């Protein structure tokens, strides 16, 4: 922000030049912008059934900070990693992958908890989340899922580390139980965030409530697969297959979002910064990794798989950030909650 200079500091020539620049701006755009002036509102806003109350939006904007979309990404990846680890162990196909997956899941759980706590207005009261359980509040369900996921995936990772040094029966049994639990809890952890933002008063979110868990769940799977590939499992055929599946589903979701009906409510997903962010996120987590992975499968190129993994990770982060900020744009659109015929959900 440049601070406008006080008149006495500016030469007479510069002030004359400024007048001319205002004139040019007005000629070019049909309006001029300046400190303390509201040209955007002209003609002056009124309160009416069509414009609402001076066009002031009646819904409040979300007040989450950057930690929340990042948590959506980390939590999704950690949940998917726990699931992959559990299945890899259950099927006995890949010991190394199972070990890595449980470490990734536990690390993700710790990071997720930290992100969520630092987003709170009163972080020291984070344990209040666990003073009640409310099935009707996705935030409450999510807090409990994350707490249990963190405990079980932490225990699983600890058991993995202990087993490397001394193989004791009871620890192996307890470790397997913890692994099973964390794999099972990874499923809700990777998908509930879609319900969390979908079950709100924000139009663009609740309008897409049926799509969001699918979108976020598949995005979580893709990022979980990608992180595991990048930490040294780039040659796992099962991960590649999962990555292809997730990218295909993300392509399908992105295609549906791009060509869906009722563009009014979904305008934040189409236009402006939030529109391009969600769109870019969709491309980077859908068609791009899908194509790269198919090429990698045909040619056996590890490099292509690495590119696909990075593309999925970046796409997944952009998707979450884009969706959260689309909610901000949607809350600011004062027209939507005043229109009755848009209130019907369609999908």
């Amino acid at each position, binding site marked *: 922000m440049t601070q406008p200079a006080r008149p006495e500091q500016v030469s007479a020539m510069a002030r004359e030049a400024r007048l001319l620049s205002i004139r040019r701006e007005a000629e070019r755009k049909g309006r001029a912008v300046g400190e303390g002036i509201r040209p955007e509102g002209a003609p002056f806003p009124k309160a009416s059934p069509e414009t609402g109350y001076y066009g002031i939006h009646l819904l409040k904007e979300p*007040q989450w900070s950057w930690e929340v979309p990042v948590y959506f990404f980390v939590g999704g990846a950690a949940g998917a990693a726990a699931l992959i680890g559990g299945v890899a162990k259950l099927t006995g196909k890949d010991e190394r992958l199972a070990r890595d997956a449980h470490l990734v899941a536990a690390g993700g759980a710790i990071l997720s908890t930290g992100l969520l706590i630092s987003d709170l207005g009163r972080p020291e009261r984070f344990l209040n989340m666990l*003073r009640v359980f409310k099935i009707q509040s996705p935030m409450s369900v999510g807090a409990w899922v994350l707490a249990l996921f963190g405990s079980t995936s932490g225990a699983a990772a600890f058991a993995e580390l202990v087993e490397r040094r001394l193989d004791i029966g009871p620890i192996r049994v307890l470790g397997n139980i913890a692994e099973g639990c964390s794999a099972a809890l990874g499923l809700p952890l990777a998908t509930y965030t879609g319900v969390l933002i979908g079950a709100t008063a924000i139009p663009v979110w609740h309008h897409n409530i049926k799509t969001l868990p699918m979108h976020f769940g598949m995005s979580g799977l893709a990022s979980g697969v990608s992180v595991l590939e990048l930490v040294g499992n780039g040659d796992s055929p099962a991960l590649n297959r999962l990555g292809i599946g997730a990218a295909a589903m993300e392509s399908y979701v992105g295609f549906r979002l791009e060509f869906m009906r009722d563009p009014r409510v979904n305008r934040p997903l189409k236009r402006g910064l939030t529109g391009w962010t969600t769109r870019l996120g969709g491309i980077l987590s859908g068609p791009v990794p899908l194509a790269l992975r198919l090429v990698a499968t045909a040619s056996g190129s590890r490099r292509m798989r690495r590119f696909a993994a990075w593309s999925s990770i970046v796409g997944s982060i952009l998707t979450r950030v884009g969706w959260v900020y689309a909610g901000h744009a949607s809350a600011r659109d004062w027209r939507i909650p005043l229109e009755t015929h848009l209130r019907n959900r369609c999908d």
Partner: protein
Amino acid sequence: MSTSANFEIRHSWRTTAFLTDSTLCIGCKACEVACKEWNHISEDGFDWSGFSYDNTGSVGHSTWRHVKFIEGDPQPGKGGNAGDGISWEFSSDVCKHCEVAGCLEACPTGAITRMEFGAVYVQPDICNGCSYCVVACPFGVVQKNRKDGRAFKCTFCSDRQRVGLQPACAKACPTESIKFGEINELRTMAEERLRELHERGIEDATVYNPMDTSVGGIHAFFLLRGDPRTYNLPPKPEAPTIYLKDGWRSAGLVAGMLALGSLFAFLSTPARNSKNS
């Protein structure tokens, strides 16, 4: 202290409500002042909005009562206006204390509860500022105070009601535009007032109390002139819990796909050569 009607001791709690009658409102903002003073609410900024005499805009964490100013075309007689002046409408907005309250359902800590007399109340000693209630309110009432870290909204003067006093705004209102009382009595009063206004030829008078949506009625209803949308009152507010069923069904479906998909991925591929493990 003198005995007054306000000091009746209640043996059984009644569900209470606000009826805000805009046809009696003179836009004095006594309710805003009384609310801020009684509840020790901080200032809400000193910016000029340019929107009539309203420099606040909406209810929020630091504004629990908010007077809306609506300027209309000159219309002799409307709201007691002279011929050539603009016609005025004022309405004092407040938390609606919904029958099915989105904020209350969404609150993960149980900080938001329902009081004996039906108020929706944020317990300040429990709220941890997760701000999920902010996006759950279909009326845009509750808001987090970023400096304080917690969410705030109208308490329905729960502290006053518990000792038999009426809320500060209702007490300070000089024209009894803000009426406070038992909810069914006030509903009847609203109906009677509406009939009276219609008989007097004020045909655009309406009562705003959305009963046929998932919100299921509100404990702070409004008597207005004209379309409620002019006052930023949504025609069809919904408690966001109605979206849960679709959401969890979809999440369950995806969870199934993830579980079966990963089983398939591992079972359909050869075991990885684990010599490097």
